[in-house]
């Protein structure tokens, strides 16, 4: 039996220990905010925070996070008012929105690690996250805004 804390809640799993965290979150725990975009750690749509680090849930197995703390987009802030989320809304970032949970989690992890990233650092840290709609200019601006106070 694998135990993992997700958004502060204890969850357990006694199925396949190799099940990717992504599918545990989406299909077993019903947390569909975390998205599937590639399954190969190539797009960042599935980004969640494990302890304090951004990870790709699609290649992280449920057993890898046993005993650890997972934060998904649903648990980032109780009212959705994390500075990154607020900045996102202020800049009107999303188009289709599908990549945005992953982008926001990546940005939140970046700011935990580096509260005042330069534009170059933002561009580098966010480059694992694809946005097919092409919202990059706004994502960059929103991360910058979040880092300077919304």
């Amino acid at each position: 039996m694998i135990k993992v804390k997700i958004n502060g809640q204890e969850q357990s799993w006694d199925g396949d220990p190799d099940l990717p965290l992504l599918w545990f979150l989406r299909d077993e725990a019903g947390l569909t905010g975390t998205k599937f975009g590639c399954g190969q750690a190539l797009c960042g749509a599935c980004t969640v925070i494990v302890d304090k680090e951004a990870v790709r849930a699609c290649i992280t197995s449920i057993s890898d996070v046993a005993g650890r703390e997972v934060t998904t987009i649903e648990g980032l802030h109780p009212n959705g008012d994390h500075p990154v989320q607020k900045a996102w809304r202020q800049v009107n970032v999303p188009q289709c929105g599908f990549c945005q949970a992953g982008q926001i989690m990546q940005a939140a992890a970046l700011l935990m690690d580096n509260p005042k990233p330069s534009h170059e650092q933002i561009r580098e840290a966010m480059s694992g996250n694809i946005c097919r709609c092409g919202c990059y200019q706004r994502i960059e601006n929103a991360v910058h805004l979040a880092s300077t106070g919304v």
Partner: protein
Amino acid sequence: MNFIDNPGKLRGFEKHIKVEKVSRRSILKGLGITGGFVLAAPVMSRQAFAYETGAGKMPHGVVVDPRVFVSVAPDGIVTILAHRAEMGTGVRTSLPLIVAEEMEADWSRVKVQQAHGDEVKFGNQDTDGSRSTRHYLIPMRQIGASARTMLEQAAAKRWGVPATEVKAINHEVVHSASGRKLGFGELAADAAKESVPSIEGLKLKDPKDFRYLTKGQVGIVDLHDITTGKARYGADVRLPGMKYAVIARPPVTGGKLVSFDPAEAMKISGVEKVMEVRGWPWPSKFQPLGGVAVIARNTGAAIKGRDALKLVWDDGPNGKYDSVAYRKELEEASRKPGLVLRKEGDADAALKGADKVIVGEYYVPHLAHVSMEPPVAVADVKGDKAEIWAPVQSPGGTREDVAKTLGIPEQNVTVNVTLLGGGFGRKSKCDFALEAALLSKELGAPVKVQWTREDDLHNGFLHTVSVERIEAGLDKDGKVIAWRHRSVAPSIASTFAAGTVHQAPFEIGMGLVDMPFEIANISCENPEAAAHTRIGWFRSVSNIPRAFAVQSMVGEVAQATGRDQKETLLALIGSPRIVKPAVKDLWNYGEPLDSYPIDTARLRKVVELVAEKGEWGRQVPKGHGLGIAVHRSFVSYIATIVEVAIDDKGKLTVPRVDTAIDCGTYVNPERIASQIEGAAIMGLSLAKYGEITFKDGKVQQKNFDDFQVIRMDESPLVTNVYIVPPGPDTPPSGVGEPGVPPFAPALINAIFAATGKRIRSLPIGKQLEA
């Protein structure tokens, strides 16, 4: 009679074909909210306005009926239906906003509700072709104005004053003479008893009184949900007892399953069943390809189970499709005369007599949509009823196709439209929803079919592959006197009809025969090309290769004559005029030419605007270059300037992009900017990396590592967007697609300016590396 002459009412194909108007027979119910509008009066759909659009010719036309689209609850909450699909353009916000504007509703008290697929009730719902604003600006205004008029009439009656003395202002009706006011909620029940006013008599708001339209200050309705993970896409639908499925499909288009062994798959923890899925022979429109489904308790188990399947396929007639060989075929075809589609003057003779002939053979390979959300659908089929939840661009078409595929009446099918995690034309084809419906029927349980990214690349409906060959003949002064453009590419029509070898009218009308240059001798030709995979609409469609070729040739003419690109471009466009190409039944994006002519004054205007704002001719550092391109598509006019920087290793970056768009009367400039910003990214992606190749009939790319798209570290540092202010009564035109076509040629012209290298084959790939 072949399919091209008589495509009937095949949806998705049509678009330029007349479909008889559906009678507005059904008296349609409102939203069923208590105390809401439940109005009764005949409604008409003719547009009483300064211009006509092609909206009425779409399948099921337009429905202008406040009872269908608007309801007012006693607490004052106004619910407005969004009947088009949201895939990132902002349409789910923009169309209801138009209604709210005319109605004088306060946007903070408006709820938007997504309509299910029902075109008899809502009118056409095909969200494609950059059509939503262009077809619905006026109908949505009329719907809002009708609702407002009914609320005003109800208030006037209540107060016993003439209706002309009252006015709806910000969610209330006001009688200024007496200072009395009534909220929309208080009037809802009475307003529901008013008759629907005739469209001809409606008074639309004076645009100078607009509070929301053209202001760009309203965020999209899903903004909060998207940023908190609550927004519901197709993949996010969960039903009690739902099974999770992935499907192994034939790796070659037209291939068939020979045999399969489920034993190993069944051993995977969580796998419940392995079963065959019905496929249709190619070409089969949007019907499923068939294959083997693995059913499991979660998607992860289903994928693992599929990996363990043993499968034997018969690859069928396309088993030899090879991109390298096919390109040679296209090139050879482009060097011989083809079906002549437009002939003005005598291009052959003029080319022979020209002082100089420039020949450009331009290649654009197959492209994949890779919408961020791969295709996915949930179906629950019980007996002769089916309910679907899916991210589809064509809710009405999906409903028709599900009914046909299951052999049940259309009224028994409900299609719930979720948000789309990107569409770009891929989700105009509902094959994934049909797969879910077939599986659910057999399993007797709700099923979600999830496509992986590999499935998306291997079994999609790709953008065509084309060779565009242009010969431009110059006289001794460097003036272009002859233009021959041969376009060779497999047609989208091949997905509907076997043996298709020519482009359909809606493809040749995208930048081939509508070419706007003022040249005396023109020949536009279409040699034959057969398809060997499924071809479909991809954002901007044939405009991508055509604009790439035509606008690159402008750069080549500038290069050959030593003149400025922009001046060369303006000289080719020529005098401000309405272009009337010598083409029988010219396809004009489904729009009447009277309202939407090919207007070179507007084309020149966007070139001049972008040149001014984008500082054309500015000094750029060494290794940088500027390129310009313009293209009319989806009846909009767009010009782009790209600044490129190439380092000594051939690494390409884009410091700045400037784009000017004339999309006529517009609704939401903030979303226009976001579409154009995104189009620059998509344009750069396809120019730099976009290529799907085939070997032995199979797509060779698997995922985002070998089908790359632009990431943030390579994205333009800044994209500036300038919107041309519309003249009075300028009809609205497309926004979602037109931004893409001019990007690649502007980039390629910029690369030439920076390096002296002329790239004629996309993607750029390693061509700049020393």
